[in-house]
């Protein structure tokens, strides 16, 4: 299918779900891209994983009670995030063990709950792999509003988040409340995951959080640039992914994630400074010497006579 046909379909009133799905996919990947930067830099991918699992029973309950799935997921996810934050302050128990114990359990609980609802098989597939149909209008506003709140909080607390990522001990010494900043960050991760569940699905949502941010990290050594690149990569992956999924009738979540993964691989191979191939191509003679505190004072090498 050509791009023009895709655009026509987007504007076709009979296919009203398509622009809605695109809007939600793009908004959630932008939010996930930004929040994912902290997740990648702090090496806390496990939090995203944990939350993605733990959200499931909440969604299942909401589904059985016919309530808002986003809300149900958010409640369960935030509860989990709080538990992890509290447990991980005590560094004696490794976080991943805790997650191993009760988060897979939570996922199992979700499956049991949802199996009680009639006609659950189809819905189960939707939760797990995402879908672009059947998104209520209300979700558009919920996702948009939540996205703005998340980005606003990131903007407000960025300086503090960076300080805690850099050095927890020093942050405590400065009088920052590391515990509360952890909680806020975990809750932001949870909300980013929850608003992305609809299109991407439960199983793949972690990729939306990690892959664009990891690709951006490969492309730059500057945090500000990284936090602009990651949502850009996420948004483009979502758009291209949705287009491909619509054209070739592939599952939307999987296609979006595959596009993002392709971007990551490209960055890994061709990144300007650290890319695998870029490094190889660079001539060994062009390597910089290790320099001292005053690089400008280093005498220029004169060509051999």
């Amino acid at each position, binding site marked *: 299918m050509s791009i023009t046909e895709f655009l026509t379909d987007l504007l076709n009133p009979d296919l009203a779900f398509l622009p809605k799905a695109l809007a939600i996919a793009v908004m959630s990947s932008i939010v996930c891209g930004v929040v994912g930067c902290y997740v990648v*830099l702090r090496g806390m991918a496990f939090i995203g994983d944990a939350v993605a699992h733990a959200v499931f029973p909440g969604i299942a309950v909401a589904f059985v009670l016919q309530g808002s799935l986003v809300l149900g997921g958010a409640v369960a996810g935030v509860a989990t995030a709080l538990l992890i934050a509290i447990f991980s302050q005590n560094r004696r128990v490794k976080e991943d063990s805790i997650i191993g114990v009760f988060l897979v359990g939570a996922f199992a609980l979700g499956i049991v709950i949802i199996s009680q609802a009639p006609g659950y098989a189809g819905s189960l597939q939707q939760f797990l792999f995402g879908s672009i149909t059947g998104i209520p209008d209300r979700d558009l506003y919920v996702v948009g509003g939540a996205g703005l709140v998340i980005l606003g909080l990131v903007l*407000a*607390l960025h*300086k*503090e988040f*960076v*300080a805690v*990522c*850099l*050095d*927890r*001990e*020093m*942050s*405590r*010494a*400065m*009088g*920052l409340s590391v515990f509360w900043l952890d909680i806020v960050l975990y809750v932001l991760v949870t909300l980013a995951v929850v608003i992305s569940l609809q299109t991407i699905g439960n199983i793949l949502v972690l990729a939306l959080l990690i892959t664009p941010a990891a690709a951006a*990290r490969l492309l*730059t*050594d*500057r*945090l500000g640039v*990284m936090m602009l690149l990651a949502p850009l990569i996420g948004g483009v992956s979502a758009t291209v992914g949705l287009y491909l999924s619509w054209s070739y009738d592939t599952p939307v979540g999987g296609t979006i994630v595959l596009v993002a993964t392709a971007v990551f691989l490209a960055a890994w191979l061709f990144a300007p400074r650290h890319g695998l191939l870029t490094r190889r191509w660079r001539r060994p003679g062009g390597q910089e010497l*290790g320099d001292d*505190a*005053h*690089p*400008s*004072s280093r005498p220029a090498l004169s060509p051999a006579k």
Partner: protein
Amino acid sequence: MRALDIEGLDVDLGGRPVLRDIRLHLDRGELVGLLGPNGAGKTTLLRAILSLARTRGGTVTVEGKPSRPGRSDIGYVPQRHEFTWDFPISVEQAVMSGRTGRIGLLRRPGVTDWRAVGDALDRVQLTGLRRRPVGELSGGQRQRILVARALALGPRILLLDEPFTGLDMPTQELLGDLFTSLAREDRAVLMTTHDLVAAVDSCTRLVLLNGRIIADGQPADLQDAELWTTTFGVSVTSPLLKLVRAT
């Protein structure tokens, strides 16, 4: 008024006594070396001074007031491995991160903050590398960033945790000189180290610690071998004694 006054400090960790009856005073202009074997409680003492470790008893007074995180006039230089060196951030931003608490919530660094960072970088001679990502620096340069980050608050007390570990002799000497001149600029500097030679050489006073304070005095007054064998739990034939010229 003393820069730092510790009286009768007791600290327990995990239900075990780690520090007992610590009494220690610091004046401005002093560079004090805190020496002791692994597990002696050196880091714990620094954390107690910052009131990051819960104390069981005793008082820590900084410039006449009880110590409080973020309020007391203390610059802290934790061990180098506490810092996330692969973070995508420049040298000057890393130093600025030391002022996060001072700048306050919802505020951005202003002119004063950037001036403080510039001065701190000058002080440790890293101005030429200010835009370099922190991950692309040598161990000595990294240590100087951490010192600059502490100096960016303009503190009158400086606590350094093992600043020499893993550094070569020239770099140690450079840092040692830096600490000496920082102390001469009317600061009180307390530094833990396993580098006994450097400590004996550059510190104005040495404190031997192993759960409790075993000795406290000028290097020249600590030549009784027994003080060192008690602190470090070594035998009288240990080369350590030659290192510190104790008999």
